[in-house]
């Protein structure tokens, strides 16, 4: 097994809530509360969860858009958690990001050509000609016409803009792309086009993905390994086949059963959770899921469950739940 491309160790990101006359810190929003994961080169790790679970914050903390409060991010064996902007530059070539909102992820007054050239300019890649060539290449890779070069973002549809965003992320030949809900804002018929593009990039260029989404069906389609997040922690992590075949954590089971399937007449016993998704500013005591959990025991109210390894070294399956203690 080659050495991992990305290792995240006990990462935490807390946001202070300020209040009062002197704007002191009143409380913390624990958006990411101790997350660890490993990503091998060329693999796709799917991070799934509902709003407030911290998956987006996790992605942004890994790429240093947010400064991690605690824990480590190790890229290609190097600890990049606290590097300065200058020191981060060479690592930025290896790790890039694509965003959710196609209408906000491209600078409105820059042409496509300018947007795609920027990464090459900042990192001094080759001379002018090489860069221009590379820009054209990128448009080909994402399946867009060369006519797009002199256009402005507002002249494109959501799906096309998303592809331009992907082209920008590819410019520096990254080994890892963090995709933050890249298809959630797209129409259904366009989603599949972009998902196919992502699958091609995985296969043909060996790019690893940290794919963040709330749609389990989308996640299953692209991921090798999946981590289910709830209120800042990963509650279950295993390979995608096992997750769908034998989910262990009650939340994972509820999530799977909540997905409306386009298969009418199929009788399902649906697990409908009571209550609402809690806010990370005010997490419940003990296991964060206990107020909504159909299998909650007394212990769950007071003790936070530790992650347990239920699988084999070849096929690890980690679950954080007292049912398996």
């Amino acid at each position: 097994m080659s050495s991992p491309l990305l290792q995240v160790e006990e990462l935490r990101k807390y946001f202070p809530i300020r209040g009062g006359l002197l704007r002191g810190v009143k409380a913390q929003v624990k958006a990411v509360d101790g997350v660890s994961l490993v990503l091998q080169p060329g693999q796709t790790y799917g991070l799934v969860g509902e709003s407030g679970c911290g998956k987006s914050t996790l992605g942004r903390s890994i790429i240093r858009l947010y400064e991690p409060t605690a824990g480590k991010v190790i890229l290609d064996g190097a600890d990049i958690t606290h590097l300065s902007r200058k020191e981060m530059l060479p690592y930025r070539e290896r790790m890039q990001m694509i965003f959710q909102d196609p209408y906000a992820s491209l600078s409105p007054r820059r042409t496509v050509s300018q947007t795609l050239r920027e990464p090459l300019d900042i990192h001094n890649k080759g001379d002018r000609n090489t860069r221009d060539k590379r820009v054209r290449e990128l448009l080909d890779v994402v399946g867009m016409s060369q006519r797009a070069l002199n256009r402005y973002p507002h002249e494109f549809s959501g799906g096309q803009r998303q592809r331009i965003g992907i082209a920008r992320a590819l410019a520096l030949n990254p080994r890892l792309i963090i995709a933050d809900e890249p298809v959630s804002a797209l129409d259904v018929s366009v989603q599949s086009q972009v998902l196919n593009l992502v699958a091609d990039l995985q296969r043909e260029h060996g790019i690893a993905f940290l794919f963040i989404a709330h749609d389990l069906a989308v996640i299953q389609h692209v991921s090798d390994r999946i981590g289910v997040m709830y209120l800042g922690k990963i509650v279950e992590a295993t390979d995608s086949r096992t997750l769908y075949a034998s989910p262990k954590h009650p939340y994972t089971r509820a999530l799977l059963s909540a997905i409306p399937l386009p298969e009418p007449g199929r009788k399902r016993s649906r697990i409908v959770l009571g209550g609402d998704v809690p806010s990370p500013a005010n997490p419940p005591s003990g296991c964060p899921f206990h107020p909504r959990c159909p299998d909650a025991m007394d212990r769950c109210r007071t003790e936070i469950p530790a992650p347990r390894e239920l699988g084999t070294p070849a096929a690890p399956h980690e679950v954080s739940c007292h049912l398996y203690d």
Partner: protein
Amino acid sequence: MNTAAEVMEAEALSDAAAESLWTKGLYKFRRDRVGLWAFAVVLLYVGVALGVWLGFWATGWADLAGEKWEPVSSAHWFGTNIIGQDIFDRAIYSTKTSFEIGLVVAVLATALGGILGAIAGFFSGSWLDELILWLMGVLDSIPFLLFVAAIAYTLQGNPYSMHIAMVVTFWITAGRLVRGEVIKLKEMEYVDAAHALGVPEYTIIFRHILPNTSHILLVQATITFVAAIKSEVILSFLGLGVKDGMSWGLMIAESSQEVLAGFFNNFLSASVLLFGLVMAFNLFSDALQDALDPRTVSD
């Protein structure tokens, strides 16, 4: 609910030329009747001012060209003033003065406001932001006329003391507007993308964020232009403004005696021309704002 936008959803990549947001704005502007007329009037004034500056006409504005208080005639289109100077020439010459002040102040104040506002907004909450806000607060609380007088005195009658005073006071509005807009814009994902690419912070501010406030800056510049001209009139009237040269403010000041004696030409010429420019520019500025409003221009 956004049904019109829903309707506009899919735009095919046609053979038409690339359309920047400016082109779209221009297209919108061209359909605004009032705006176009206002713009035409402004251009007329610009032409006049340019001619004066190049020495084509009104060079003899200080000459004693005629008799005291001559009425309107073919030799003197607006008549003459109390000492026999041609009012028309003086009024035309003043156009150049107004434009000079308006442009210098508008450009400098807007630039200063844009830069400081962008920096304050981008680093909002930090000491830099607090510093710039404090500066804005302090300068804003000094009464304008006193400020001009103080600067004029300090600079020992430097002819640009008026310009300096105006720039130092007028940049604040632009600064506040830009700061507010930048605070919003820096949360956009394209700014995140630039960070993720390793683009240095100041490059992000000036390459990605500030250009997206340019519609605000342009409109603010036109408003500042008008404010500068109007302020000059008051300052010149009080003797704090234009020192050498002629302006509508000076004309109005010197005409106060004439009006008491029943001779209105001087007063009217200056006032009407001033009113014309201010009105036209205001209407132009309104039309410009409508045309450049990103909510209607972009998708």
